């Protein structure tokens, strides 16, 4: 199976290629071909028949995204935060420990004005940080903002 990779920066070609392949397209050959067709005018085109050694950080990122997707399925339609955050995928994310913090913060940032329920994981992994003012509890946009500010202060924001 060939993985086509596009980038304007030769040095970043591996990261861009693998990230696109796993995070955007999924592990199918047809999906990989969609990646090939996506860019309008690629400057560099590379291909390889060999798996590329991913960095640990990249593996963590991929694992996090997979677990986040699983969690969305596993949580179903529950309204209980306790039930929602004790699903296996969410527990696995928490078990990633401090390595997951920048990933969760990045995810929260990417969700903008429709943030998801990452706060229990952040509270757990940060060993009890609770930057949300009482009056903002329950308002997810304000809770997200408080945690993003916290991450900025603590050096977890990227």
């Amino acid at each position, binding site marked *: 199976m060939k993985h086509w990779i596009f980038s304007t920066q030769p040095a970043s070609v591996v990261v861009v290629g693998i990230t696109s392949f796993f995070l955007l397209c999924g592990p199918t050959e047809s999906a990989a071909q969609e990646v090939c067709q996506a860019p309008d005018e690629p400057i560099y085109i590379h291909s390889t028949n060999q798996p590329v050694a991913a960095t640990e950080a990249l593996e963590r990122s991929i694992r996090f995204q997979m677990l986040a997707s699983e969690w969305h399925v596993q*949580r179903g339609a*529950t309204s*209980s935060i*306790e039930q929602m955050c004790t699903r296996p995928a969410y527990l696995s994310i928490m078990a990633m420990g401090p390595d997951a913090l920048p990933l969760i913060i990045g995810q929260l940032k990417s969700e903008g004005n429709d943030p*998801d329920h990452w706060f229990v994981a952040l509270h757990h992994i940060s060993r009890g940080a609770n930057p949300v003012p009482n009056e903002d*509890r*329950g308002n997810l946009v304000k809770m997200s903002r408080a945690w993003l500010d916290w991450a900025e202060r603590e050096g977890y924001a990227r």
Partner: protein
Amino acid sequence: MPGSWPERNFPHLNAASCQITSPATPAYNCIAWAAGSNTEWWDPSGQYYWPPDIPAEFTIEALIQLYEGLGFTVCIGGTLEPDFDKIAIYAIQLPDRRQATHAARQLDSGEWTSKLGACEDISHTYAESVNGPGYGEVVYFMSRPKPRA
């Protein structure tokens, strides 16, 4: 139905019995929605909004107290009474207890509206339309006089 909820948990929801009324969002849940809020997630777990002086637990008793604090009292059934707001509380039977799961609110039409966790909110014909493996069944109806216009 094209909703994002797990269909197997809601065997009575179909095109005839329910309609999606807003997109899926994690911004609010059924407990808030039944109380009339679509800007907060109400949960007793500590980081979320939970009314003061209500036991910090997701139980039938705590939900009854919560809605009593908003003027509701337990009533007999979910039949439409034009002068009353009504809500329904749901629970599922576990081996050792009944676990609270959900709350829904009656609309002026007599239909009901539910926010399905972080999924969509829907209108459904009967309070019992969301009964099933996910939410169990209605265990209490509560009502309060509608505010005067």
